């Protein structure tokens, strides 16, 4: 057992899989010699050499296209797109190519690859380097979408993503890179499509993802300490496949559900989950389903503005308390 940063967990996760399987190769901008702009790939080039860890030009379409061609023909590539906002310049691969090739070819074409990307706000980078784009990916049949919140989950879910036969979008949260957590020694392998109950509770279920997970946990502690409200906090972790059973079981127990989403409000991931709860657990509910999201607005740059626009611990706690006490 060792304490590891989320950033170092990325390095360890990639290294674990490259060590295990020679077909795992890694490409992206500044990922090799420079070790990544977020320093989340330091040492991999030195360890695995220039044939397996490759710097690319600033060519996001070439990066994802090459990853796909390699995956179709026998490799298991990990491709990095530096900022998830840049998905918009290579979205053809994410929306049209990776996810549809197997279906269109009646099962002939395989596409076992992972796209890692720095997602989310908190770095004061403004509207085009801070977005949470998990909902862009979640809506596309054929993709899997994962967003870990802790170092141990980074390793285990990254390993599961690399070993998965389908294309996986792996969203690393930029504001979590410096956070730390306990990580066991040895190989770590988790399972896609599994949510985790991080704090059991009886009064309300709070669903959260990535950076919103520590905030939801802190809000739950505040609600317990200040108002005696006992919240169950679920880290959704994997949007596709989605662990609806864990979520529905929790709602059956607490009779209340909240989502805490960093993506802007319209068509955010919580909307889909809330609609599932409304369809399948309506009679378990004692009150409205409530989504706590970033508003339908681009992200500002100034620290005071950015902090104000994202769901905060206080905002989460407030909204849960007011809803339960209404």
């Amino acid at each position, binding site marked *: 057992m060792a304490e590891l940063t989320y950033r170092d967990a990325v390095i360890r996760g990639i290294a674990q899989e490259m060590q295990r399987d020679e077909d795992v190769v890694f490409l992206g901008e500044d990922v090799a010699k420079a070790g990544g702009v977020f320093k989340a790939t330091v040492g991999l080039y030195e360890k695995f050499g220039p044939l397996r860890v490759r710097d690319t030009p600033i060519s996001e379409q*070439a990066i994802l296209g090459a990853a796909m061609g390699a995956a*179709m*023909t026998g490799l298991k590539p990990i491709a990095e797109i530096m900022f998830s906002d840049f998905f918009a310049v290579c979205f053809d691969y994410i929306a049209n190519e990776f996810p549809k090739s197997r279906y*269109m070819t009646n099962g*002939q074409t395989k596409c076992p690859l992972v796209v890692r990307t720095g997602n989310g706000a908190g770095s004061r980078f403004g509207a085009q380097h801070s977005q949470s784009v998990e909902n862009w990916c979640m809506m596309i049949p054929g993709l899997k979408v994962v967003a870990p919140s802790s170092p141990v989950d980074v390793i285990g879910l990254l390993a599961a993503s690399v070993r*998965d036969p389908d294309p996986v979008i792996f969203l690393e949260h930029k504001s979590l890179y410096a956070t730390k957590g306990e990580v066991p020694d040895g190989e770590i392998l988790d399972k896609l499509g599994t949510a985790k109950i991080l704090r059991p509770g009886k009064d309300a279920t709070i669903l959260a993802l990535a950076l919103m997970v520590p905030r939801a946990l802190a809000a739950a502690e505040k609600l317990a300490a200040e108002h005696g409200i006992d919240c169950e906090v679920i880290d959704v972790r994997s949007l*596709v496949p989605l662990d609806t059973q864990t979520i529905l079981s929790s709602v059956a127990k607490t009779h209340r559900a909240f989502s805490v989403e960093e993506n802007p409000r319209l068509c955010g991931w919580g909307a889909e989950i809330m609609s599932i709860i409304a369809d399948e657990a309506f009679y378990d509910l004692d009150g409205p389903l409530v989504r706590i999201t970033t508003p339908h607005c681009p992200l500002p740059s100034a620290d005071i503005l950015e902090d104000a626009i994202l769901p905060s611990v206080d905002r989460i706690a407030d909204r849960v308390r007011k809803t339960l006490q209404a």
Partner: protein
Amino acid sequence: MSKKPVTSTALNDDIGEDKRLELYRLQVVIREAEQRAYDLFLQNLVKGTSHLSLGQEAVAAGFAGAMKKGDLSFCTYRGHAHTLARGVPIEKVLGELMGRDNGLMRGKGGSMHLTSEEHGVMGSYAIIGAHLPIACGAAWRAQYKKQDDVSVCFFGDGTTNIGAFHEALNFAAVWKLPVVFVCENNLYMEYTPIGDVTAVPSPAGDRASAYGLEKIVIDGNDADAVYRAAQTAYDKARSGKGPSLIECLTYRYSGHSRADPAKYRPEGELERWKQRDPIKIYKERLKQFGISDDQIAKIDAEVKQEVDEATEKCKASPTPPLEILTTDVYADGGFAWRN
């Protein structure tokens, strides 16, 4: 008319009789199958859209004819020709166009996505430019695993103006990938003359130097010229010397797609190109090398019969069962996204 005696030695130039007959047959297969696809469309038996390669047969035949087993083809939505040229059965292609269960992908892909991995046809891509980077990736795998196959990527003149073309060319050149980029310059990007929207006269050839590549522009209506250019490029790729970009000058007899009557063409242009019809040119070539009219007629008749038989099989084939509607979305064979 006196006929020269047919001997293999008389035909033993760099291409040879067997290969020439193969190249001829491939062109006729493409011509007849494409014409049949058009006829079936007029009978409302081919639905959706289709993009024919009538007039461009020599490009597909020459490049496929020079490939080895294991080489990979990446095609566009105008991909029937390249698919047939790799030996995919005509029935499977027509069946897919007709939305029948005997189609190459049982009707799940359609005309624009013909794929047969067992024949090395790694997909037909309907988003302009998308498959150039994908071909780079397949070539990267060959380079990484020290395998000697070449990835060959076909596209039209219009593709040279999209970003993915330039990203892929640079990427392939920097990584020295065993990939061959083949531009079929048929003079029109969809409905607009390519010259009206491109800064240089040779849309692919004049871009080559930007990526440290040789400018190669060939007669795309002469299957021998295509075959030789392909061989040179494949040899270069296999010997680790990196990519090639080849522009083939050719002409599309039909419109861009079935919806396009191609009324934008200047008068006489189509007729001029038809005088340089690839099949006409190649028939003359065969005769120069002593192949008899009878031999040629026999190939023509055999291919026509193959296309007729394929057509009948497709007409008799059932439509796909609804059970396949949601299969193969994910690798587990289904489309489940939740528990």
